[in-house]
């Protein structure tokens, strides 16, 4: 009797999980369905689960439509996301290592000042940051879109926590071989820390690719639009065909979904390592 109930409970739980999983996939399904349909199919009064005519030409149409600068926006997003990732990881890992491993009297104060910025989220400072960037003349430039976002206290914190637990014997051996801090860092520490670099890089890349408020404020000219700003402009203006908008959105998240699925274990490790919950 008792056993039977447990089995019923387990089956119910499995059914509930499957239902939730399907619900979670509905938005992705809509993206693909509408992205590959004709305009008439999308707006048809009776719902079809799959488009009556799968229109693969949507994929090429969206890149050739002159009113939607998708190719250029994708290029901007790629440049911005790659340079943001590279810069953030370089700066934050060096700082994290210095804070974790180089004894210095003021290190505690510096670390508190860095953590303090977490209390003032970047989004709240977007007005003053906009003021600063515009007075530097960086509006609608790659510099303005990238440089102010390179200093992530969050990434620095993750690196510091990781380097605190880095096996000291390896560094000591390097020291005995006559390597200073700089060469120890590049020859011993970095090559032996690939998982944490992978984790932070992936998280930063996804964040930079998906960022919206900062690119919206700074990338004002169409030349400087990221893919998010381009999509948003057409979502809110509603002057574009639906099938084009959906296929553009699908194209914009496809590379990310691939990266995400391939590197998921690093992301999970990074989220867990953030140590905020400890």
């Amino acid at each position, binding site marked *: 009797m008792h056993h039977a109930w447990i089995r019923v409970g387990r089956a119910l739980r499995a059914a509930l999980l499957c239902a939730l999983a399907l619900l979670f996939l509905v938005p992705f399904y*809509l993206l693909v369905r509408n992205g590959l349909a004709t305009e008439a199919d999308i707006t048809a009064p009776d*719902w079809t689960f799959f488009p009556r005519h799968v229109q693969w030409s949507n994929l090429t149409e969206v890149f050739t439509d002159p009113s939607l600068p998708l190719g250029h926006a994708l290029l901007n997003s790629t440049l911005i996301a790659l340079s943001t990732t590279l810069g953030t990881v370089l700066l934050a890992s*060096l700082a994290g290592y210095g804070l974790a491993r180089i004894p210095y009297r003021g*290190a*505690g104060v510096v*670390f508190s000042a860095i953590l303090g910025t977490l209390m003032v989220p970047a989004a709240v400072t977007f007005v003053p940051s906009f003021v600063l960037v515009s007075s530097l003349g960086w509006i609608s430039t790659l510099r303005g879109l990238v440089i102010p976002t*390179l*200093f992530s206290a969050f990434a620095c914190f993750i690196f510091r926590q990781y380097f605190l637990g880095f096996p000291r014997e390896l560094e000591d051996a390097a020291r005995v071989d006559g390597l200073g801090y700089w060469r120890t860092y590049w020859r011993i520490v970095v090559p032996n820390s690939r998982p944490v670099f992978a984790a932070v890089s992936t998280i930063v890349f996804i964040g930079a690719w998906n960022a919206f408020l900062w690119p919206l404020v700074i990338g004002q000219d169409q030349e400087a639009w990221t893919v998010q700003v381009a999509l948003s402009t057409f979502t*809110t203006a509603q002057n574009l065909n639906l099938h084009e908008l*959906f296929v553009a959105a699908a194209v914009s998240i496809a590379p990310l979904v691939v990266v995400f699925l391939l590197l998921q274990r690093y992301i999970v490790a990074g989220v867990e390592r953030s140590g905020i919950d400890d």
Partner: protein
Amino acid sequence: MTAPTAEALPDGQGARGAAERRRRTPGAGFFGPQRRSLWFWIFVGPFALGLALFTYVPLAWSVYLSFFDAHNTVTPTDFVGLGNYTSMLTDGAFLSSLGTFALFTLFIVPATYALSLALAVMVNRLRVAQAFFRSVFFLPTACSYVVAALIWKLSLFSGVRFGLANTVLGWFGADQTAWLSTTHPPWYWLVIVTVRLWLQAGFYMILFLAGLQRISPQLYEAAAVDGARPGWQTFRHITFPQLRATSVAVVLLLVINAFQAFDEFYNLLSDARGYPPYARPPLVYLYYTALGREQNLGLGSAGAVILALIIAVATVVQARWLGLGRKED
């Protein structure tokens, strides 16, 4: 050596360092490892400088601007004292943006908390296909708010007949609903809250899964010996209390993120005619005040300072109240 750095240096490092120094001093140049403060700043300097320049300087500048009448200028001369603050705090639109935030938090924090915890508990107990389900629930994290808002606005909760929600309700004979423009009842909240719920539930599920895996199996064995039934009783007396630290962190992050909400509100609600007068959270309000047609940077800066103060105070109070860092017993 001061206390904060001491934690970074486990046992005996000081003594070892001194011995090393003696051994190395002869022949070590300007950049030798004994120049610790120099090396510290080579590693930390660029990051610290940039962070100061792009966080502390704008904040300070913003405080300065907030005391001036700064329309369209960042070097104002017209000092107005606390004028911007008083007009901000008496502005009905600003106050109602704080009300919008409060209401949004009231919906999104409990909803995300409950859903992500439930997902974590269910996924954690799976013996098959655990990785698959984890991926499915985590996958929306890769999606941007812009793309999600696009799907919600133009397909899922589209106000016209071919929207999915209206289609499904139509099968049951219900009328079409203009989800985003109906204010009585305020259906737009359903659209706004479900976007964020879908996007972030998987992220918090991962945090809870990590927390669940840290609970010692012996606790469950002991509970079983004591006669606790698996299921609700075990969850209430073992799992939930053991997740206390994770819960505190999750609630803090949820509130901070809700406070910064902008992307989904902007993309769901604004259209060719502009942004409707309702459902404007603080950042949307600030965006239109500081960067809208008037470019009132003084007023916008005052708003930013007020918001920064609110979030700092709220974080500290919440951390105290929820007992962040308190030892689990």
